[in-house]
């Protein structure tokens, strides 16, 4: 599989398709309060938009979009976002992950829960996206073509 030159049609097609899949992934994450969706599904769609470029054009071009050594820190950042939300709520006087106590001014308790759920969904989406990319990157390492 060495020195296989990728077809320009495939390169152009994936480069055309990837941003739209990414936008749909963000839509699924942010619209998860009103329709089926959420962090897990949206994170998977974001990972698909990254993996499409990786499969079609190889590691060197894909590193221009998302650098492979950034995957592990971002996955840890997703866990830290989730855990930190719970920890902030605990420091402000509530239980762990009790969103009523989040320090966002001017909102009642139910709306605070709304925003708390949105924040942790973002953390979940970041972790799922980077972990799926990490698994693919490590599996094709050493067998790189193009």
């Amino acid at each position, binding site marked *: 599989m060495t020195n296989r030159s990728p077809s320009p049609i495939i390169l152009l097609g994936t480069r055309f398709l990837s941003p739209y899949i990414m936008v749909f992934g963000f839509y699924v994450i942010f619209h998860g*309060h009103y329709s089926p969706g959420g962090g897990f599904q949206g994170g998977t769609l974001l990972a698909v938009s990254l993996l499409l470029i990786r499969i079609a054009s190889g590691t060197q071009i894909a590193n221009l979009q998302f650098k492979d050594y950034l995957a592990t820190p971002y996955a840890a950042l997703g866990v830290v976002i*989730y855990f930190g939300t719970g920890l902030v709520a605990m420091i402000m006087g509530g239980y762990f992950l009790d969103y009523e106590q989040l320090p966002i001014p001017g909102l009642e308790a139910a709306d605070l829960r709304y925003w708390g*759920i949105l924040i*942790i969904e973002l953390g979940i989406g970041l*972790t799922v996206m980077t*972990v799926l990319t990490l698994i693919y990157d*490590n599996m094709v390492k050493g067998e790189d073509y193009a």
Partner: protein
Amino acid sequence: MKYLKLLLIIAFTLLLLFAASDLPYRGEADNQMNQEISMTGTPVPGNYYIQEAYNDAHTPNIVTVILGDYRSIDTLGEQIVIFTAGLIVFLLLRNRKEDEENDQ
């Protein structure tokens, strides 16, 4: 040995079919898991989630409220499982290319 395994699969399937014949009909509204009080006298959480999810979080999607609010510590555990799986893959496959070069 192969026939023993086939016999095991057939016995497993027949046992599950026998057990499934006693399950309640799918989709009936008065099934045990849809009632307000369970067999042991404790309240069933499914009804509480449906009735109170919108009032608690102002979010129409009940699944999101359960995932992010009522069972949020469970979801934190799942996220840490995913993160750990990623780390395991990273550590298992990290030195693969260098090992192959050392073997040669």
